[in-house]
């Protein structure tokens, strides 16, 4: 029996067109059926090795967004000057010329006087080149979320370690998969459809899965073992586990640490590398019995541990410093923090270390690699915390200890896009770190120009929530200008930012709000002007985003003519650039961002207005050749193929990766010096080269807020554009994990609550209403809220339990190294007051 949709006949009135999904950012290959001009079905493209014909629930409903009656069908201008939640803006449709005149009238004077007065919020990952548009305008801001409560602490550590953006364990060869705070392979994160199949196949061949998290998620339900943990304490768990691995079981890869990392490099009392007079990092050579440069000719064997005198200073290897810290993190002490029994930590350490097959090798395509089929995979739940940098570092280091980084069976870096890894040596024989993959680092400046203070995060990501604080408290950041206009582009900050009430207050201060979007939502409600974009089924872009197992471009293409008077967002931004007088700058940016400059004939001329199709054609040809332009992709859909072993495994072979994160320590020290010169108080305490356990703002006894609130994503809603699609809403409303606020029955009983009872969840920062849903699959300290409960558009009688309202938008809850926001809230549960119940 055929499984391949493409084998079906195509007629003029019944066609299947290849494209890419945009119901999340990752872009699985799809085939779209168009019957009599109506999109009636979307299936996975079986010819695309990324998702292999599979499609998650979000991808299946793509046409419901296309035909959503809440689409913005033409440019709309507000007629009611009063703004507020639930206040009807009195939308009036206008023509595009009039709309673009209004945009020009607002933006051109700002562009010419002080472009910092424009704030942009962008969330369009597939057209990520458009994220640079504000910079071309001259605006440095980021008024949205990009990672402060998902990957802010994850991406920089990945980039510093091996220049990857994301990371996931090796589905093909891993035999022991420890999953911590991640849905990879089960319910969320990277390329769900293909990852779920790869994970299911791996489990069926006998790979063991152990899942550590506060809630019995699909990853925990399908695991061989679920280990419940108190939220925000994953670092304590992994430090306890590493303590046992190293000191009790002796199961770690000394050869990998010695030969492939900086663990043996000598570190001085200042925490920086000890250097010789030529500026070279030093090691202790056991054969010579002396300190020498890392690359000295005719070397003997490097020693991993110890303290050595270098020019009268006592220096220690990075590994020695790690051991010194680890000695204080015995499983018993960590158990008190994370609630996982010390005996469990010890047993898991032993299982993991044994399964890593330390010392074994595997030959693939004629090359011999270390074979380490055991790895720890993690994401948001484990690292989106005020100490997220240290969390992320600790979780990376357990893998480095096992010698499994980028080797078969291990923990594999995932590049951001088609460019792959960025392989360049630094001066110490290391892979040059790439903390910033989304945009170049922003040099220090005081006061900062950007509202998210990007100038003060030399290694971190844009912490958009700080922009909210800065708009409301400009004196705190010594701002010397006032933001005036907000442009949101595929971004819904009122929904996706923390501290919803503060976001509303901030938005209320702007003179004018312009939204480029597909549907009306919580943020467009505040707009003065909406410019409607095409949906993904009406627009075209070639891309690849965070592919765990494949390489190559996929084309998302217009499969039907636009239904409404909408325009492609890329072309809207080009026209604004032209009208505001910076088309030349923007064309130069696009040429650079899309790599068009390497062939002169593909580079964009400064003064010409290009269509999106023209730009995409040049991009495809720049990535491949003239045979593979846009027309080729329109017919064939993609150039996606499996990664070769040489691309997937140690593509930077011969260069070392960090074990001791010296680059973070150096950056933090430099930042502190820069601030000392200004006299401004800025905390740099999160810039540490090695992780340790210490309480953050959500830890410890907090009698007024005894519980820990967490949020989670499901396959129906993760990274999604579809939460307000009624078909999806009705499914999540009936599902066990998403029907209400999850509480352990014992916790509920102690509070006198029963299943279905109305409650309010109260943090220091906000209060939300909800209904109790009892589950034995929840840590008793925890209140768990699915993001499926947050919607108010199209909801069917369910309460809006908007988790982000419970979170702060404050520096004290932000990792000052990475920009990660604490995404666990300490809360208490109250019975509803009459006003709220009404």
């Amino acid at each position: 029996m055929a499984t391949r949709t493409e084998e079906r006949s195509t007629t003029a009135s019944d066609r299947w067109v290849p494209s890419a999904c945009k119901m999340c950012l990752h872009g699985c290959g799809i085939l779209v059926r168009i019957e009599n001009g109506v999109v009636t079905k979307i299936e996975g493209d079986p010819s695309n090795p990324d998702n292999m014909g599979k499609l998650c629930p979000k991808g299946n409903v793509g046409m419901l967004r296309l035909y959503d009656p809440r689409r913005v069908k033409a440019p709309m201008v507000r007629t009611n000057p009063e703004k507020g939640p639930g206040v009807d803006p009195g939308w009036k449709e206008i023509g595009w010329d009039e709309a673009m005149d209004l945009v020009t009238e607002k933006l051109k004077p700002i562009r010419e006087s002080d472009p910092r007065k424009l704030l942009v919020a962008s969330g369009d990952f597939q057209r990520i080149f458009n994220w640079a548009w504000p910079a071309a305008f001259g605006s440095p801001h980021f008024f949205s979320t990009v990672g402060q409560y998902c990957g802010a602490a994850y991406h920089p550590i990945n980039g510093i370690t091996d220049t990857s953006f994301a990371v996931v364990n090796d589905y093909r060869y891993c035999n022991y998969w420890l999953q911590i705070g991640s849905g990879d392979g089960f319910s969320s994160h990277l390329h769900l459809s293909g990852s779920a199949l790869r994970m299911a196949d791996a489990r069926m061949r006998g790979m063991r899965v152990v899942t550590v998290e506060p809630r019995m998620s699909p990853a925990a339900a399908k695991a061989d073992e679920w280990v419940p943990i108190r939220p925000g304490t994953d670092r304590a768990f992994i430090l306890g586990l590493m303590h046992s691995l190293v000191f009790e079981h002796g199961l770690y890869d000394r050869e990998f640490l010695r030969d492939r990392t900086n663990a043996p490099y000598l570190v001085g009392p200042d925490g920086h590398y000890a250097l010789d007079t030529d500026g070279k990092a030093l090691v202790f050579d056991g054969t010579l019995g002396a300190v020498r440069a890392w690359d000295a000719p005719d070397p003997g064997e490097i020693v991993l541990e110890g303290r050595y005198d270098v020019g009268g200073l006592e220096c220690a290897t990075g590994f020695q410093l790690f051991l010194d810290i680890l000695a204080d993190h015995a499983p018993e002490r960590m158990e008190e923090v994370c609630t996982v029994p010390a005996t469990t930590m010890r047993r898991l350490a032993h299982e993991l270390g044994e399964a890593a097959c330390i010392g074994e090798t595997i030959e693939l395509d004629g090359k011999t690699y270390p074979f380490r089929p055991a790895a720890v995979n993690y994401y948001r739940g484990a690292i989106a915390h005020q100490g997220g940098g240290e969390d992320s570092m600790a979780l990376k280091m357990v893998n480095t200890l096992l010698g499994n980084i980028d080797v078969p069976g291990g923990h594999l870096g995932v590049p951001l896009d088609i460019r792959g890894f960025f392989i360049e040596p630094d001066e110490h024989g290391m892979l040059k770190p790439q903390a910033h993959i989304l945009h170049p680092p922003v040099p220090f400046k005081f006061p900062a120009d950007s509202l998210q203070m990007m100038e003060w995060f030399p290694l971190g990501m844009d912490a958009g929530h700080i922009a909210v604080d800065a708009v409301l408290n400009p004196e705190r950041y010594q701002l010397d200008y006032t933001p005036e206009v907000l442009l949101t582009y595929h971004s819904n900050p009122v929904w996706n930012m923390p501290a919803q009430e503060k976001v509303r207050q901030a938005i209320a201060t702007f003179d004018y709000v312009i939204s480029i979007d597909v549907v009306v939502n919580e943020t467009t409600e505040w707009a003065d002007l909406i410019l409607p974009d095409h949906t993904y089924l009406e627009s075209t872009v070639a891309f690849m985003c965070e592919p765990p197992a494949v390489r190559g471009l996929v084309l998302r293409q217009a499969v039907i003519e636009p239904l409404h008077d909408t325009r492609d967002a890329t072309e809207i931004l080009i026209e604004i650039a032209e009208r505001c007088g910076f088309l030349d700058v923007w064309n130069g940016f696009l040429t650079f961002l899309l790599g068009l400059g390497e062939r002169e004939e593909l580079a964009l001329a400064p003064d010409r207005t290009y269509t999106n199709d023209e730009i995409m054609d040049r991009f495809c040809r720049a990535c491949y050749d003239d045979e593979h332009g846009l027309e080729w992709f329109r017919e064939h859909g993609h150039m996606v193929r499996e990664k070769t072993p040489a691309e997937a495994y140690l593509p930077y072979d011969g260069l070392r990766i960090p074990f001791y994160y010296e680059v973070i320590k150096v950056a933090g020290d430099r930042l502190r010096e820069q601030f000392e010169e200004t006299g401004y108080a800025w905390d740099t305490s999160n810039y540490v080269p090695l992780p340790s356990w210490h309480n953050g703002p959500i830890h410890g006894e907090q009698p007024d807020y005894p519980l820990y609130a967490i949020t989670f994503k499901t396959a129906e809603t993760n990274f999604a554009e579809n939460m307000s699609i009624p078909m999806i809403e009705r499914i999540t409303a009936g599902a066990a994990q998403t029907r209400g606020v999850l509480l352990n029955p014992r916790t509920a009983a102690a509070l006198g609550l029963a299943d279905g009872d109305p409650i309010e969840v109260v943090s220091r920062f906000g209060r939300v209403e909800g209904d109790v849903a009892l589950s034995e699959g929840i840590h008793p300290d925890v209140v768990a809220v699915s993001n499926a409960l947050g919607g108010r558009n199209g909801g069917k009688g369910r309460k809006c339990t908007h988790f982000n309202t419970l979170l702060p938008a404050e520096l004290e809850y932000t990792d000052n190294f990475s920009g990660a926001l604490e995404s666990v809230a300490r809360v208490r549960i109250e019975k509803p007051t009459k006003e709220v119940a009404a």
Partner: protein
Amino acid sequence: MTRWGMVIDLDRCVGCNACTVACKIENGTPPDHYWARVYTEESGTYPEVKTTYVPVLCNHCEDAPCVTVCPTGASYQREDGIVLVDQDKCIGCRFCMMACPYANRFFLRKGVLEAGYHGERTAFEDAKWSAFTEGTVTKCTFCAHRVDDGLEPACVVTCPTEARIFGDLEDPESKPSTLIRERNGKQPLEELGTNPSVYYVQGR
């Protein structure tokens, strides 16, 4: 003679509801008609808890009670085992819904199609909902229209973990027959003697 059947591998299923949604789109089923759906079953007490995702659909029983009780012949079984409802013959008496031990039939109330999901009909709903008549009973067709075209059902094709395996139960070498044999496939409520064409496997 072919007898179409399905094996559902409970070890593979991650409860993502892709099947639920793919079915609703392929067949354009009205709101709250879930021919394919997934139940989450939780058992035990914290921390010794077990969660199982159980996808269900019409079992296309060989001895189908819904067909037996239908007074008009609207519910019928094809030679290949697929149980269908002829909407032109269905009078909406719902005897079949009472007879089905698996709650796999759905009554289409008056007004549901007109309102659509949004209170107004969309182009998608216009295109897909013409197959249904208010006041009748609907059910999973095993995607007979696809099967007759040589294609697997929509829920099978989309399933990210390949937890649904479709094929001919009469062919001992088919994928479902092999799985039933090798992994001890079980029919739902097999004690009722309806001989479902859907089997479940669990444990490896």
